[in-house]
């Protein structure tokens, strides 16, 4: 029974490249394997149909049926034409350097706020979950502040921070921080007590338990939190940029509204959608890389 154990049978179930390799090679192989699975599945084609339906509805309602509700709204052909025009009527398209300036400024604000929210929020959440005493002190205040929406912080942010940059970053940070800290705390609390007990049995000290059980055990929740966090960061960034700031996609949308440049509003919105999608995908990729145990489990789950 030592040689022909069921183990060998089991390992062959794992795609070869994933079972044998380890580290970066494995994650690349896994990414390739998933991409090929994805392309073979109906999902990418359904996605295309979904987008086509969305654009078609927009086109029909604005440009063909001319529904009254949509009378002020620019149609997709007008927006696309403006977006990809070398000489845009309203001054913003992919050929205008200013367009990238706006994207860059917004992305930079997101990066700073998201970075701060992560380096403060994750340790804060870990301690909330790890120390009952710390939680008793801090959590009620946290829960009291959390429902206050970032927009309500706008006046205070402008009074507290100088310039136009820091208030926006502060507002963006707030919502991100709540999402990250709360999910991290839930992550710690979700860890099965058996893992901590097992580590104690095996002779781990309190610090080793924290390092080898609590942190990796909370990781799936932490990354769920970070994905939510990067999403709400864009959410409150735009709110902040509409109020203060001289550049950024929120600023573009707001000024285009006051200056009646309707197609540019849509360009700003669509760009936000795209850049936001890319940032959450990036967070997800980092998470998959750091939690290979989980991605492999899920990859297997999909196979069975």
């Amino acid at each position, binding site marked *: 029974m030592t040689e022909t154990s069921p*183990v060998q049978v089991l390992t062959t179930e794992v795609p070869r490249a994933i079972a044998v390799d380890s580290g970066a090679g494995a994650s690349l192989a896994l990414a390739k394997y998933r991409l090929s699975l994805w392309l073979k599945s109906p999902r990418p084609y359904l996605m295309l149909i979904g987008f086509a339906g969305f654009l078609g509805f927009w086109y029909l309602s604005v440009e063909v049926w001319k529904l009254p509700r949509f009378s002020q709204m620019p149609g997709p052909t007008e927006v696309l034409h403006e977006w990809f025009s070398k000489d845009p009527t309203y001054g913003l398209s992919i050929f205008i350097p200013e367009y990238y300036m706006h994207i860059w400024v917004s992305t930079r604000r997101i990066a700073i706020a998201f970075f701060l929210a992560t380096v403060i929020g994750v340790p804060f959440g870990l301690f909330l979950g790890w120390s009952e005493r710390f939680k008793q002190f801090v959590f009620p205040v946290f829960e009291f502040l959390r429902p206050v929406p970032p927009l309500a912080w706008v006046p205070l942010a402008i009074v507290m921070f100088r310039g136009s940059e820091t208030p926006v970053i502060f507002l963006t940070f707030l919502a991100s921080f709540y999402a990250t800290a709360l999910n991290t705390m839930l992550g710690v609390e979700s860890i099965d007590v058996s893992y901590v007990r097992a580590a104690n049995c095996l002779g781990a000290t309190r610090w080793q338990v924290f390092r080898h059980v609590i942190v990796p055990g909370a990781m799936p929740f932490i990354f769920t939190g970070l994905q939510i966090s990067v999403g709400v960061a864009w959410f409150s960034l735009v709110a902040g940029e509409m109020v203060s700031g001289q550049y950024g996609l929120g600023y573009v949308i707001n000024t285009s509204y006051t200056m009646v440049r309707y197609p540019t509003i849509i360009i700003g919105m669509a760009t936000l959608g795209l850049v936001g999608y890319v940032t959450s995908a990036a967070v997800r990729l980092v998470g998959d890389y750091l939690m290979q145990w989980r991605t492999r489990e899920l990859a297997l789950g999909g196979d069975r």
Partner: protein
Amino acid sequence: MSVEPAVMASRSAVAQPVRQGGVRINDVVKIYGAKDTGLLAVDHCTFEVPPGEITVCVGPSGCGKTTLLNAIAGFHSITSGSIYLDDEMLCGPGKLKAQPGPDRIVVFQNGALFPWKTNIENVTFGPIMQGVMPRAEADDKARAMMADAGLRGIEHNYPGEISSGVRRRVEIVRALMNNPKILLLDEPYRALDSLTKSVMHEALLEIFYKNRVSIFFITHDLEEAIFLGHKVVIMTTRPCRPKKILDIDIPHPRDYSVLTTKRFREFMEETVAAVHEEAIKAFAAGEKER
């Protein structure tokens, strides 16, 4: 108070393994909550787990067997009484909670391999945390022990990639890496189907014959208890205390053919009524609580 010496064995004699890892449970009481109004889980419980043997504790679910195991492991305190490992007091008057440590390792009901570590990282976890072995040496030992247990080729897989039966074996190897005096198994095969279970039982016996580590095994499955145990302790339903203690004189090594022998049937007949009676009491008590 006189302390009985542990069974003596000369360390020089290779043929005769060192018999250690005996546990004595003396008059242990565990009350959850306040002393007069709390829930009495373990009631003046006294029995012995002899060194180098398998002792199986049988009782209905929720009867307090796990409470007893947790007290030995050091996961929670006892209210009174004492528990000894060989001649060392784990917990007792003045020290009601034992310190968990690698001399008594628990294998958990639902398994507790760390899913974020590969199988070999799990197996080397103990020695590396305790700092008793450099990583390379731990890796070598782990590989050898895993190969010995028929677990070759899965070292760098994660626990999520192997079946639950194989996971249990990795977990037992992880425990054995620390040369524990006793293994505490808390219904480890509860979630497995009966076919996998029978494979696991023989694998456990195989490991036991190789290592002669003392085993304290908790279950509600009487057949499993008689098949594995040198000694079977049948527990009353809550509050838990030994109702009947049997020495199973079916010779070791055992395999599954034992199940059909006359002697095995006799043990089953002798005990099934006692276990059934407690199960009915537990069921009735459950009805009352609702």
